[in-house]
């Protein structure tokens, strides 16, 4: 069974948001990496780019499929996880430890539109 961590926010398109103060770490869930299979490439935006909730900010490609990354929150990207550029398999090893972008939240109320861990567990059953 895919791992779901309490205290995080989850989107219908299988991204998670981990909030720390005014910042949020965004990545794909364990369920998403499991479904995708071996990930061979993560197409990431650049530091300083703006993301908008509900809009794509990159893509993830596996041996099975390619999918858009959809941002669950809006704000400025303050950091991208550069380790994924050469080692995309890190997402398969631990999707929650290997976030993709760090966003400075411009509208924290958007988090209310996301699922909590319990709701997400039900969604992927």
């Amino acid at each position: 069974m895919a791992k779901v961590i309490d205290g995080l926010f989850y989107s219908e398109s299988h991204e998670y948001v981990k909030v720390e103060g005014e910042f949020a770490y965004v990545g794909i869930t364990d369920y998403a990496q499991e479904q995708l299979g071996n990930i061979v490439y993560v197409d990431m935006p650049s530091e300083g780019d703006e993301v908008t909730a509900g809009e794509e900010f990159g893509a993830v490609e596996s041996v099975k499929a390619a999918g858009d990354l959809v941002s669950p929150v809006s704000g400025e990207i303050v950091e991208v996880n550069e380790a994924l550029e050469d080692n995309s398999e890190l997402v398969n090893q631990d999707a929650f430890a290997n976030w993709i972008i760090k966003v400075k939240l411009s509208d924290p109320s958007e988090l209310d539109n996301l699922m909590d861990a319990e709701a997400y567990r039900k969604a992927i059953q």
Partner: protein
Amino acid sequence: MNQTLYSPLIFELSHPGRKGYSLPENKWKVAHATEELPETLRRQGGLDTLPEADELTVARHYTNMSGNNFGIDTGFYPLGSCTMKYNPKINEELAALPGFTELHPDADDADVQGALELYDTLQSALAEIGGMSRFTLNPYAGAHGELTGLMVISSYHRHRGDAKRTKIIVPDSAHGTNPASAAVCGFQVVQVSSTPEGTVDVEALKPLLGDDIAGMMMTNPNTLGIFETRIPEIAKLVHDCGGLMYYDGANLNPMLGVCRPGDMGFDVMHINLHKTFSTPHGGGGPGSGPVGVRSGLEAFLPGPVVEKDPATGLYRRTSKPDSLGSVSSNLGNFGILVRALAWILAMGRENLPLAAKISVLNANYVKENLRDYYALPIEGICKHEFVFDGMRAEYGGSHSDASHITTLEVAKRLLDYGFHAPTIYFPLLFHESMMIEPTESESKETLDKFIDVLKKIALEARETPHLLRTAPQSTPVRRLDDVKAVKDARFTYTPEVN
């Protein structure tokens, strides 16, 4: 034994100084690249690594290697959405006529009247089959046809002075090429979801429509093999908001001669000659992706166009002022056009619908015989293809069990029984998609063997699952490391350093 002797890479069979030719002594001035060519045009090293071998070794190496290839002439190839039908040999005979093979693309129109007539005959045959006004045969492949068709849509809106239309609607069951072609053409892609029955959700479509919609791309029957019955309603909605309807012809086979995209309200379409019209496909290409348009859009088609001069009765190549430009060199993959027309004429108007109907019959026959073993997510009659969502739980296909038998393992095991694998993990609507398209070409005996083997694999999955986990056993190479193939791709030969 020959396989082993001659199966190393041609580089590994190389011996310095070996060659398969002898040239007479050169009596002329020897030209050296170093003197004749600027630095930027010269190969920088690497010549010494070109293989050197005698002719017989080369012949055996490649002849043995060709035996490792799998094609429609060697076995059943049920690759969903690819329409791997038989490529009749008469097509090849006709395409090999010197009058076609020795054509020069820049020959004067007066000297190639036969070739131009063939082009025009095929374009009007496709126009009749598609219910369109005119076709260009110039695009080289399906996705190239999609791009060309979208450029027609873009030209149409621009010509009307409407610059607001920046979006293309694509169903979530679409071929991946649809959103890709739209993006390459500069459009923003908007996805519309499917109903549980697998067809476009008309209620979900309505809120997406507006004056920013350039058009909508659809495949019918869709990638689940399901006929989109609400097309007239969808076409009306899209037309009412000012958009055009694009028909992806990848799945035209079951409609051939039975119904026409033009009659359903589509404005622009492409056809894959290498699928529906029996020209080689899958390593045997090249492809061809003709694009058809309804009346009123002909002026935007790419050039050159072939038309008959009413005064002289002669064919000529011209370009039109509103044309979107050229998308290919000259008239596309001409040899493929010869094959496609040969097939249409051999079949005749009366037999094209028969091909369509038998492709539907074959798909339903395979589906109904296997549904007790493999999970069928969409009920009802399919068209030319269908999708299983992996193996049924009682044979080990349960998705909730992490160690379940996967579609990949079934596909690999099929290779051991001499069948090509179906399309797997597409469409993305299901986790374990296995998409099977038998085409009209296959005999009942072949279909029965295929059904028996897939049943046998289901029993193996329950009783001896290691046979699936370790498959394939009988192929020249075993399970490939597809992650390494992507991440550590090597395209040039480098000798092993010990």
